[in-house]
């Protein structure tokens, strides 16, 4: 299994690590039982992601995708930010090993949760839709690559 240079760069030097004090929105997804938990905090200005930070307990992919998703989202409208797909995250990282694709769901879900949190806190409707990875029964390996016999 091989990681791209970009995955390794974001893993080794993750961007936007930390917690924003007095954040406008907070998303925490994942499950320690599964070995990955991610927390995203955002500041919102004009319905745009003005600032964003993350904390992640997880594997290399979880950290790298967390890092890149904060870079991708920064400056985006909330609407654009919630619609970032795990495929886009993987592409932005020059691809992920097939067995690791599922780990990228955490990053997009964390972002979604933070945005919905902001919206709901502000009396607005959530827009992210269901957030799978915060369900403790969610099986991140549900969509595996190679079929086993």
């Amino acid at each position: 299994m091989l990681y791209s240079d970009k995955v390794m760069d974001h893993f080794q030097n993750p961007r936007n690590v930390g917690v924003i004090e007095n954040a406008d929105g907070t998303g925490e997804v994942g499950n320690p039982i599964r070995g990955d938990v991610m927390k995203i905090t955002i500041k919102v200005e004009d319905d745009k992601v003005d600032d964003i930070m993350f904390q992640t307990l997880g594997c290399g992919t979880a950290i790298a995708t967390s890092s890149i998703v904060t870079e991708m989202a920064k400056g985006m409208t909330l609407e654009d930010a919630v619609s970032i797909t795990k495929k886009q995250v993987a592409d932005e990282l020059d691809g992920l090993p097939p067995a690791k694709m599922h780990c990228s769901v955490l990053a997009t879900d964390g972002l979604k949760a933070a945005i919905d949190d902001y919206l709901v806190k502000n009396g607005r409707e959530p827009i992210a839709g269901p957030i799978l990875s915060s369900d403790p029964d969610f099986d991140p390996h549900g969509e595996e690559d190679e079929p086993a016999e």
Partner: protein
Amino acid sequence: MDRTVYLDYAATTPVDENVLEAMMPFFSERYGNANSLYALGRDAYTAFEDARERVAALMGATHPGEVIFTSGGTESDNTALIGLATAGGRIKGHVIVSAFEHHAVLAPAEWLGKHGFTVTEVSPRTDGLIHPEDLQAAMREDTVLVSVMHGNNEIGTIQPLRALADIAHAGGALMHTDAAQTLGKIDFDVNDLGIDAASFSSHKIYGPKGFGALYLRKGTRIAPYMMGGGQESKRRSGTQNVAGAVGFARALEIMDAERATEAPLLAALRDRIVEGVLGRLELTSLNCCETKARLPHIANFIIKGVEGEAMLLHLDAKGIAVSTGSACSSGSLKPSHVLLAIGCPQEFAHGSLRVSLGRYTTEKDADYFVDELIPIVERLRSMSPLYAKIKAEHSAG
């Protein structure tokens, strides 16, 4: 990276240069097919049988014919489990395996479970050991085979095989052990252990990959797993890998010659690492540390609040090679079944780190590893959304 510090000898080992030297003639010069009658074939045959005799002697086997050469630990395990259970055309019966076997044993056991046999898994206790009374309780009238590994590859605990074998035999069952991690590394004698079959892997003892052996006590019936030309007295078909056998035999000889000096050295290095890690990292423990019967070269840590693959990759960036039982490192859903079997909570099992030392490990390597590990763990913990909570809980509890 400047330094390379290999601390994953339980995963695989480099081929010892003396082993490679012994193998070399058998690639391009002494290349005969060991089944052929002419000189080149007889030469290959002689070398192959000589390797068998040496291997047999080094495990205390009574007859060289008790050693069957295979393509590795996995094949030996598959052959033992399925071949012993189905010997003589048997189509049903009860098979017992331990819950923390290597997948090369668990998977064929599962196959047996789907093909007429009943399979019971006996769990190790938190000390990483299969207790004889637990095996005893699992035995049934129709138990035909018990398979409990000798040394566990993740946590290094050594099972009380003799006692387990006695129970199996008293119940009329055969006793197999996966000894891939122990042969050559600790005293190993098939008669002292009282086992009927044992699996070995060459690449765990500085021999070549893709080679292994199965010990099979004389008179024990087995259905061949690899079927064809009838080599290995009809018990394992396929053109004999002479270079592999010669390398494996040489590797085992070296293990045997070095053991008395190597084992205490490795144990000392391991303890140095254990002290360093436990002394400098909070919320960190050594799995089954209370168990005396452990392999000298394996230490398996649980480092709370970090995920194994992330540690592994950061260590890799420093040139250090270790392994983890984290789910994410294997692409599987659950963390190491071994850690779960000994009662390690799933959330902490993701933070496991296995260090395994070997022939070329130095004190400097040990210290380098500890020195590099500490800041990595601290950094990952500082990035974790949970660590503060874990720590608080710990202080409170």
